[in-house]
C-alpha cells in the first residue's frame, strides 16, 4: 500500500515536471502567432475584465500602501531633486530660447503641427496588471485593439517614455517596459553634439538603461559630449530593423554618473529612466506614432 502511494506520488511529480518542460520548450521555439501564444492572448482577453474589476476594488489598499511608501521615498529624494531642479531651470532657459528659434524655423518648413503628443492620437489607459518579477518588466493596460491600439505603439507616462505595446487583444494590451530585455530605443543625448545611440536595458541592473554605440567625443572638446544629468530623448528614427518607431523628442531619462573611460573605450553611458517604472498607474499610448511621414521640403 505504502509502495503504491510512493510510486503514485513520484509518477505525478515526473508528469508535472515533464509537462512544464514540454510547455517551456514548445513556447520558447514558437512564433507569436502560434497556438500557445493564441491561448495566452485568449486568457488575457477573458481575464482582463476580472482584473480590471479587481484593480478597481483593490485600489484603496494599493493607494494606502503607496502613500506610505511614497512618503518614505520622497524624503530620501529631496536633496537629489533640489539639485535636479537647479540644473533643469538653467536648461529650461536655454530650451525656451531654442524653442522660439525652432518655432520660426518650423514655420518655414511647415512642420509646426507635428511636434506635440496630441498629434500622435494618445489613448489614455489604466494599468490593471503588473509583473512583479525582475525579468519580464511588463504591465497590462485596459485598452486594446478596440480602442485603436496597435502592436509596437509607444507608451508614455507622466514623465516620459515607459515602453511599447508587445501584445494586443481587443480589450487589453501588454506593455513591455523600456527596462525589458526585448526593447531597444534609438535615443539622443541633449548635449551640444546631439550624440545618438541605442538605448537598451542593463538587465542585471533592473532600474538602469545603457546608451550604446556612442561616438566618443574629441578629447579636446569633451564638454560638448554627454554630461551627467543631461536629458536623453527619443531620436525619432529607427537604427535597426528590430527597433520600434518612436516619435522624436519624447523624454526617456537622464545621463547617470559615468566614468570617462566607459565612454571612450566602450562608447556607452548609463541612463536613469525619467519615469518611475514601478509607480505609474496611468499611461498614454501613442496610437499614431508617425502621423505625417511626408518629407519636409524647404520652399
Amino acid at each position: 500500500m505504502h509502495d503504491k502511494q510512493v510510486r503514485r506520488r513520484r509518477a505525478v511529480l515526473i508528469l508535472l515536471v515533464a509537462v512544464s518542460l514540454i510547455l517551456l520548450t514548445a513556447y520558447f521555439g514558437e512564433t507569436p502567432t502560434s497556438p500557445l501564444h493564441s491561448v495566452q492572448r485568449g486568457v488575457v482577453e477573458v481575464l482582463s475584465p476580472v482584473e480590471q474589476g479587481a484593480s478597481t476594488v483593490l485600489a484603496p489598499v494599493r493607494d494606502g500602501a503607496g502613500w506610505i511608501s511614497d512618503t518614505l521615498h520622497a524624503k530620501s529624494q529631496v536633496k537629489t531633486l533640489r539639485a535636479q531642479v537647479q540644473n533643469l531651470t538653467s536648461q529650461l532657459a536655454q530650451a525656451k530660447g531654442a524653442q522660439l528659434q525652432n518655432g520660426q524655423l518650423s514655420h518655414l518648413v511647415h512642420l509646426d503641427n507635428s511636434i506635440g503628443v496630441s498629434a500622435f492620437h494618445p489613448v489614455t489607459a489604466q494599468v490593471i496588471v503588473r509583473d512583479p518579477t525582475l525579468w519580464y518588466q511588463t504591465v497590462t493596460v485596459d485598452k486594446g485593439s478596440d480602442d485603436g491600439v496597435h502592436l509596437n505603439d509607444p507608451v508614455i507616462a507622466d514623465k516620459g517614455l515607459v515602453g511599447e505595446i508587445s501584445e494586443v487583444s481587443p480589450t487589453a494590451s501588454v506593455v513591455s517596459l523600456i527596462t525589458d530585455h526585448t526593447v531597444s530605443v534609438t535615443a539622443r543625448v541633449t548635449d551640444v553634439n546631439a550624440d545618438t545611440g541605442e538605448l537598451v536595458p542593463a538587465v542585471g541592473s533592473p532600474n538602469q538603461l545603457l546608451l550604446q554605440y556612442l561616438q566618443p567625443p574629441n578629447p579636446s572638446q569633451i564638454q560638448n559630449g554627454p554630461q551627467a544629468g543631461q536629458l536623453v530623448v527619443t531620436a525619432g528614427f529607427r537604427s535597426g530593423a528590430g527597433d520600434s518607431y518612436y516619435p522624436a523628442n519624447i523624454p526617456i531619462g537622464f545621463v547617470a554618473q559615468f566614468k570617462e573611460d566607459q565612454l571612450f573605450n566602450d562608447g556607452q553611458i548609463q541612463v536613469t529612466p525619467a519615469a518611475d517604472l514601478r509607480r505609474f498607474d496611468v499611461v498614454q499610448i501613442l496610437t499614431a506614432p508617425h502621423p505625417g511621414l511626408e518629407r519636409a521640403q524647404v520652399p
Partner: protein
Amino acid sequence: MTEVKDKVKLPLRLILLAFVAVLVQESAVSQISIFGVSADITPLVVMSVGLLCGSMTGAVFGFGTGLLIDLVLVQTLGVTSLLYIVIGYWAGRLRELRDPSHELVPLAAGAVAAAFAGLGMALIQFLLGVDAPVSLLLLQQIFVVVLVDTLLALPVHALVRRIIRPVLPEDPRRRRRRAYTTGGLSPLQQGAARRGLTSRTAR
C-alpha cells in the same frame, strides 16, 4: 452523495484560492512598492498549501498556480510552473517526513520558498539565454524580496489555513499527537491511572 461532495470541496477551494491569489498578486500586491521591490505572495500560498495538504497536492497546486501566472502575465509558459511544483512538493514532503509543529515553521519555509523562486527564476532566465550580467543590484533585489516575503509568510499561511482547513481530511498522525498532548491516549498515563498512581505534578 455526501462523500462525493466532501471529496470535491478541497479541489474546488484550491482552484478558487489559486485564482484569487494570482488576481490579488497581479492587481494589487505587485503594484505596491516596499523598499523598491514588490512582494510576491504566490510562492507563499503554494508553500502553505504544500505544508497543509501534502506533497502531491502541493505539487499539483504549484503547477496550476504557476501556469495561471505565466498565462496572465504573457510570460514563457512552464517557467513559473516548474519552480512552483518544486516549492509545493518540497513543502509537502517537509510535512510528511518531519511533521513540523512549531509556529514559526511557515516563516522559515516562506523564506526558503521565496529565495528558491527568485534564484530559480534568475537561473532559468540565464539558461534561456537572457543576456544578463549577475550584478550586485539584482542579488540585492532578490534578497529584499525574500525579506519582505518572509515577513508576509505567517499571515499568508494563517489565511490559507483558515480557508482550506475546514475541508481537509483529518490526518491520523496529528489526531494522535493532539490526543497525546491533551493526555487522552497515552498508554503510560492510562497504565498509571489503572494502578491508582497519581502523577508527580499532582502530588
